[in-house]
């Protein structure tokens, strides 16, 4: 039944895709309440969950960029939008930067798309794909000493999210090398 319903959804809602260049240079991450109300239909359910998952993904990035300003692995915002392995990786990375005396600056540009939600009704898991542009970011030495840096760029990213205690959180992600998407 759910397969059939999802299939119908696929056919009905298959969006006409915008061509290349639909860049969204100014993502507006907003803290939203997650889908806690009973959805009236699977369509609303999917739409709400998709929006909530994407928001959580964007907010994870916002939290990470914010934490990287001070290379603070214990920034409480991180755990609001990341959990499990994803949170471990973020905290470990920030700790590493801290140990190296490095701080981050700049903003990333996101273009996320929710590429999967399951189950089809009342989803609890989501997959997000992105082409993260990090060219506007850099690391620098906290003590002002020179730091040899190389350029950021567009990095392909896959993330998985789960609905945990009513909130979507990134539980795992893979951020690939510069130049893996354009």
């Amino acid at each position, binding site marked *: 039944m759910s397969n059939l319903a999802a299939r119908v959804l*696929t056919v009905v809602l298959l969006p006409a895709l915008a061509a290349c260049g639909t860049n969204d240079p100014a993502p507006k991450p907003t803290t939203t309440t997650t889908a806690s109300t009973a959805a009236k239909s699977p369509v609303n359910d999917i739409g709400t969950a998709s929006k909530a998952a994407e928001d959580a993904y964007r907010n994870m990035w916002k939290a990470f960029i914010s934490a990287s300003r001070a290379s603070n692995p214990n920034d409480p915002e991180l755990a609001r939008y990341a959990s499990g392995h994803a949170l471990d990786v973020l905290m470990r990375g920030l700790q590493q930067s801290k140990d190296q005396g490095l701080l981050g600056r*700049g903003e990333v540009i996101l273009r996320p798309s929710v590429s999967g939600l399951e189950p089809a009704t009342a989803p609890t898991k989501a997959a997000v794909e992105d082409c993260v542009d990090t060219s506007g970011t850099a690391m620098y030495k906290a003590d002002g000493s020179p730091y040899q840096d190389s350029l950021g760029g567009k990095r392909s990213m896959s993330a998985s999210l789960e609905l945990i205690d009513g909130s979507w959180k990134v539980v795992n992600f893979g951020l690939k090398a510069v130049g893996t998407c354009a």
Partner: protein
Amino acid sequence: MRLKRATGIFLVFSACMAVTGFAVEQAKADVVGNVDCVQDPLNSQCKVVVVQLPGKTGTGPGDSGGSSECRDPGGTIVPCSIPGRGWLGSDGCYYDGPSSQAPPGSPPQSGPGGWYFRSCSAPWGANGAWWKWIPDAARVTPEQLAQQAVSRLQLPTLRMHANPTPPARQLVFLPTWLWADPVSWNARSATAAVSGLSVTANARPRGMRISTGDGSTVNCGGPGDAWTSTAGASAASPTCGHTYTRAGAYTLTATVTWEVSWTGGGSSGTVPSLTTTASLTLLVVESQALN
């Protein structure tokens, strides 16, 4: 149309592999240098994305790609290809290409490969559409993955039984029962996978051939029947046995043939069969030598 030539090929690409050689003290590229896949190479999300191209020649966009069934990451059945959009990838998005031109602003790529335009079509929202580089060198076919799965098959060790049970001796002209231990006769399977594509190899025991050591060969269809006391001492095995006619020490060799097939990625096939073998030394004596 260009994709038709690459029938049955799965494109696999991974950015993580290309940068694993970084020295520890290497300057980080950007603010995410400490959280990217170089730091986390075993993460499943850092592995490959697979694009499934059609499995049949002459199958153009719009066809279902033969008998293969495609599913998005949510498990929903979706078209394997969409005209103008390309072919389904394991991330649930579609990949069109390769493009004859590099997309504007794309970094130069080393080695052969192509740029594919990726677009996502999930009903739950899709605003990301961009180009992805797929190197030729990282292509695998389901057949190659099948070989990997076959190599991972762990067939059970063949353990043979005989009645009379060694070290008890066999008697000339008294039927010897032979059978394989049941644990030696279980179907086995193994899976090899890259992200989004997995192939499972299945091995099933099909027959057992026994070289009895005295010049005879016995073909037992199956594992043979275990002797039980109800069968009596002089009855022959209905399925697998031999009667020695001369005293002596014989080394019996049993060989089980395993039929191996594989399935995955909308394809299936068979590979040459595998075997397991075991030896058993039987001492056959004249009846009057029995104590």
